[in-house]
């Protein structure tokens, strides 16, 4: 009798296993949106090769929400009915780690978004070089050169600065601060009213990291040495230097004075945005893309913006190069992938909804007409008249710091935020940088 039980178990296992074999990771789950085109064919499409092609489009939910990518994909597949686009977004994991894992498993999506293209992808020959037709449409991609080749497009401009609650400022008669000293005074006034002066956090390391970068940028490093990052790669400057320490010290002092709120270390990006939009924090150091998130939170006050102040003299605008998606070299449909990529990154039909939702500033040859948030427009007009520098964390191509360093830097930032000995921290930062620099082939 027991033997038959054993037999049953084996049979059951066998059936389960073979069913399991069938359902591989590309099975149809409700969360994978399969966008099929249903429109009638035009003469153009009749002429097109009617070979059905499937492309995977992937991004962190935080970078480009699924809703948006689905919407844009639908527009494309309506015009190209032979193409099916599977949108795949993820949350809770750091971008680079996520895609590196996919790389190791040989499961890179056809087209995916990654903020800074880690050289490991390029060295593994996993990313397709962008053809000239694409570069022509996104000319600033030429700035994103890695060893003479272009792998990632650049199609938008970024602006970093401080959003602020106009109502709180008005109530306390605070003017937009032009120097760090004025920022300090303003924060003290705000704190006295039991409002958290700054919304920032280190649960998502990059949020606090970005804020610290602004101090770094302003503390005479970038302002006096505009190509500091490039010089660091050539070992001509060090983190352990008075200019850098000045900026870090200022950040640390602000934190000690309680300007960042106490639970700061565990506050995430989403929570920071909420804190600011609901009036619990008066200022929010962030990039232009966050404007798209404010609307959903329905702030009951007008939002203003000022560029991050300087220690002395006139401040400059801190800009960044907005990197775009990349194409996997292993894609089974390179022609279609390039075509979609081109369209996604520069065609007004794609860029208009994307720029509108994500509050991007397009930087392509085509004219993109979209409903830009008035706040975004005011920022653009403000900074158009200012001198600018490239944000330290927004370097691209050959100028990126050694792979993995950005994370270490952000961790050291959080260490400084938590009150470490700044001298020791910057020395450590140099050690780690040099360690990784050795590998940057």
């Amino acid at each position: 009798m027991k033997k038959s039980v054993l037999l049953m178990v084996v049979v059951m296992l066998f059936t389960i296993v073979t069913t399991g074999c069938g359902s591989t990771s590309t099975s149809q789950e409700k969360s994978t949106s399969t966008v099929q085109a249903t429109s009638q064919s035009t003469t153009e499409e009749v002429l097109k090769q009617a070979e059905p092609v499937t492309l995977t489009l992937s991004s962190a939910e935080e970078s480009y929400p699924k809703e948006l990518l689905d919407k844009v994909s639908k527009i494309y597949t309506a015009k190209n009915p032979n193409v099916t686009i599977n949108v795949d977004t993820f949350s809770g994991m750091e971008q680079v780690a996520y895609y590196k894992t996919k790389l190791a498993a040989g499961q890179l999506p056809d087209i995916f978004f990654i903020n800074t293209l880690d050289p490991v992808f390029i060295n593994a020959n996993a990313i397709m070089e962008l053809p000239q037709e694409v570069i022509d449409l996104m000319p600033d991609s030429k700035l994103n050169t890695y060893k003479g080749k272009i792998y990632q497009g650049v199609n938008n401009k970024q602006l970093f600065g401080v959003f602020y609650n106009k109502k709180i400022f008005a109530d306390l008669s605070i003017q937009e601060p032009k120097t760090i000293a004025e920022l300090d005074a303003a924060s003290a006034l705000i704190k006295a009213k039991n409002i958290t002066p700054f919304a920032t956090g280190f649960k998502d390391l990059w949020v606090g990291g970005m804020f610290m970068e602004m101090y770094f940028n302003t503390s005479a490093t970038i302002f006096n040495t505009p190509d500091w990052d490039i010089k660091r790669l050539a070992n001509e400057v060090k983190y352990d230097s008075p200019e850098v320490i000045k900026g870090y010290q200022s950040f640390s002092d602000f934190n000690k004075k309680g300007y960042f709120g106490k639970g700061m270390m565990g506050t995430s990006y989403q929570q920071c945005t909420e804190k600011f939009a609901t009036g619990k924090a008066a200022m929010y150091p962030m990039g232009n893309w966050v404007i798209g998130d404010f609307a959903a939170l329905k702030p009951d006050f007008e939002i203003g913006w000022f560029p991050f102040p300087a220690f002395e003299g006139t401040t400059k605008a801190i800009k960044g190069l907005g990197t775009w998606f990349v194409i996997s070299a292993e894609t089974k449909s390179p022609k279609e992938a390039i075509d979609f990529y081109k369209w996604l990154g520069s065609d007004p039909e794609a860029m208009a909804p994307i720029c509108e939702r994500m509050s991007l500033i397009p930087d392509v040859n085509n004219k993109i007409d979209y409903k830009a948030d008035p706040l975004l427009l005011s920022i653009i007009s403000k900074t158009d008249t200012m001198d600018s520098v490239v944000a330290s964390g927004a370097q691209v191509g050959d100028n990126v710091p050694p792979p993995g360093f950005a994370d270490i830097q952000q961790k050291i930032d959080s260490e400084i935020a938590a009150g470490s000995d700044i001298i020791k921290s910057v020395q450590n930062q140099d050690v780690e940088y040099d360690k990784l620099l050795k590998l940057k082939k």
Partner: protein
Amino acid sequence: MKKKFFKKSNFLNIFVTILAALYAVPMYTAVVNAFKSYKDMTLSPFTPPTKIYLDNFIEVMNKINLFVIYRNSLLITSVSVVLVVILSAMAAYPLARYTTRLNKFVSKFFIVGLMIPSGLSIISLIKLLMILKISGTYLGLFLTYAGSAWICLVIFMYVGFIKTVPKQLDESAYIDGAGYFRTFWQIIFPVLKPCTGSAIIIASMGIWNDFLTPFILLGGGDNAKTITLAIYNFAGKYTSRFNLIFTVMLLSATPIIILFILMQKQFIKGLTSGSVKG
């Protein structure tokens, strides 16, 4: 005399009750807030819900394909656990019964597996699965679990337990003319039920809650296949909506808790004899 005895045990009961209540506070918080709306939760996080608010569950079910993900986790866990238990029980039998040089070596070989740091072999494992062409498949996952440190642990448990089963049981079966396999599966294995119970619970817990292996092998994100991956993704998306997060957690933990409650007695019996005398 009787009265005194009564008082002492009452005091102990109350003390332990208080201890248990304090211990359960985090879980209480999670359960209670799963039934509250976001507003209610932020206003009064620690009071029981005034009305049972099921919208969280509906919202979660709309956002995640809960049933499919449950089915996946169930499938992965049950098949892997069955494989682990069968293979380990079989392997433990000779290791417990015959202490030859070969067997001693093999025992040690298995024990070593327990000490291998987790995450060491992840990258190489993926490469191996790619070579075997089972990367990204459920089969790859089953085999990975069946060949993982779990069998090291379960073999260890079984060896200890089998040693407490009197050898006469085997011997009388052999004398009656039964072959080795028959003896093991029909005579010995049923006697190992308590140990099997413990092994099933421990392995199920571990595999159900495992994050790294399914993530690497099946991928995560919105296409998360297992419930643990799905929670991770969900929590990353809705970092501040704790009431929703708690709802998902409740849904995830309940099956395993039920399993434990059902198999409690077996579990404990299995842990006492042998496995502990290791």
